[in-house]
């Protein structure tokens, strides 16, 4: 036990003495949290909508005005017809083009329906579908008003089926509530995996690993001495990130914080073990950095943090079963937003514990004091 304490003391001395690394460990992740929350915002606002109004009637102006009144759209008009509108879309001068044909008001009054054409920039499919959704809502509302004006409110037909959505666990559909917990996972993952793998390789590079290997330090003592510092630092970052998330973004904390930390504690052993494994197969910090990035990019992009796992093709979903990050992203959201209890996430716990055992067993077996 004393050996482990001696190793820990040395690691902490070195970590807190490294003036270049300290801000990277403690400041950069929290700064990333504050910045990335806004970068990864899927809410659609400030859509530039160009209206090509060929009808120039009360109804067409009222429709455009309704778009303008919504805080999601900035409306501008073109008098030069559809082609000019398409040019604007091609040139990226607008995000969407609404074409209102002649006789729009007339058709609406006579037939009760009139065609509209909405052209969308579909380069970002998710964005385009959200714009379409909001446009439909606005148009549908306006339609009711027009019919009311013309035929009186008694004659407005009720839709046969009306869906009233209610977004449980994130009532206001606040993306920050979804992103902050997910980004917390990324923070602790980066620190856990990156720093632990770099740290051991650094001793290989400067040559001190040889002195360690020739000393009567047992494998488990060395590994514990190397991994515990980053385990503590990662858990500290998780706590700091949670406090920041609560204070700045007011994220909900519905579930048990100790439960979240218990899961994080096990989860970190998986990432630390991976870092250790990378360090056993790398000879230089560049190698270990490259390998860490390789895994981290796959893990984070397939974690469900930015894109729902349900939307991925089946084979990609199968990969996420073996992605420890996706389990933690899930657990953080479940516990913080939904208030899930231990029994709800017992499956996640079992999976991550199995990973922890497998990864660390592999890493320890692969680490040799004697060549």
């Amino acid at each position, binding site marked *: 036990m*004393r*050996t482990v*304490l*001696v*190793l820990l*003391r*040395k690691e902490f*001395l*070195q970590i807190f*003495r*490294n003036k270049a690394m300290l801000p990277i460990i403690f400041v950069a992740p929290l700064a990333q949290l504050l910045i990335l929350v806004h970068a990864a915002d899927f809410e659609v606002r400030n859509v530039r909508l160009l209206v090509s109004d060929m009808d120039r009637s009360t109804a067409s102006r009222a429709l455009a005005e309704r778009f303008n009144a919504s805080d999601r759209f900035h409306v501008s008009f073109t008098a030069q017809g559809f082609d000019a509108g398409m040019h604007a879309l091609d040139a990226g001068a607008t995000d969407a083009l609404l074409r209102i044909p002649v006789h729009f008001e007339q058709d609406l009054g006579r037939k009760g329906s009139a065609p509209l054409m909405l052209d969308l920039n579909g380069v970002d499919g998710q964005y385009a579908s959200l714009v379409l959704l909001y446009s439909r809502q606005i148009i549908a509302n306006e339609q009711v008003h027009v019919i009311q004006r013309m035929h009186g409110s008694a004659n407005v037909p009720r839709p046969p089926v009306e869906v009233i959505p209610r977004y449980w666990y994130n009532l206001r559909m606040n993306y920050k509530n979804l992103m902050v917990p997910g980004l917390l996972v990324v923070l602790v993952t980066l620190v856990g995996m990156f720093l632990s793998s770099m740290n051991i390789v650094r001793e290989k590079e*400067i*040559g*001190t690993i*040889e*002195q*360690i*290997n*020739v*000393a*009567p*330090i*047992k494998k488990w003592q060395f590994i514990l001495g190397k991994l515990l510092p980053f385990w503590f630092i990662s858990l500290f970052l998780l706590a700091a990130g949670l406090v920041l998330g609560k204070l700045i973004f007011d994220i909900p904390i519905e579930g048990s914080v100790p439960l979240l930390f218990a899961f994080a504690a096990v989860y970190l052993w998986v990432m630390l073990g991976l870092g250790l494994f990378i360090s056993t197969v790398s000879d230089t910090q560049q190698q270990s950095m490259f390998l860490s990035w390789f895994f981290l990019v796959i893990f984070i992009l397939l974690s469900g943090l930015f894109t729902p796992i349900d939307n991925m093709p089946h084979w990609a979903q199968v990969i996420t079963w073996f992605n420890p990050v996706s389990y933690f992203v899930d657990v953080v959201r479940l516990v913080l937003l939904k208030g899930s209890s231990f029994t709800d996430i017992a499956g996640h716990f079992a999976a991550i514990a199995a990973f922890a055992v497998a990864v660390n067993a592999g890493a320890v077996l692969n680490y040799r*004091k*004697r*060549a």
Partner: protein
Amino acid sequence: MTGAITIHAKALTKRFGAFTAVDAIDLDVHAGEIFGFLGANGAGKTTAMKMLIGLLMPTAGEARVAGYDVYTQSEAIKRSIGYMGQRFSLYNDLTVLENIQFYGGVYGVPPAELKRRTDSLVHDLGLKEHVNTRLQSLPLGWKQKLAFSVAMIHEPKIIFLDEPTGGVDLITRRQFWELIYAASAKGVTVFVTTHYMDEAEYCHRASIMVDGVMAACDTPAALKEQFKVKTMDEVFYQLARSAQRAE
């Protein structure tokens, strides 16, 4: 030398694939002896040493260090030996005191005893004003002497030194060898590799490896007589120029 045998090797061999780095070497080193382990670059010195200290598994042959078998008791060997490698083995970002405390702690020296040894070590090396100085701001000569003393912090019976004086000035090399003699006088076996033939003259016995084979092993005086030359330099030259393999 009449002391007990502390390092024993018989037909010790290390092969990397088809390449035989160390080819069946025999040696017996006694307690308190300063044993010089010479050879050109690539002759197999470091490989042989790494087998003895448990960093490398031998391919064949037998070897015992401090009475322990290198195949099965490498952890027991590690507790009985000190080692100073070719590359600087202390931490530049830690202070003199922190380095001593780290290695003393790792070797399980009891805290009270460690404090006593630290005080006398710091006093002997004249580092009293620098105990709280980080190593990166100390000159190389001081660092090498400190590395030797730290490698001796657990008072091992045998110390292995791999080119310990590489790159240090003449005066520091002299002082370094005084440390080696002091250790030898206390009965510590010193196993040292070097490129400096004047240092070979300081050894009780010297061996010269050529192409993985031990080409000669005797006292410097006997070796000079055997090859009918005046200096170890010439002995080395005669043997090493027959080497086939370059680095």
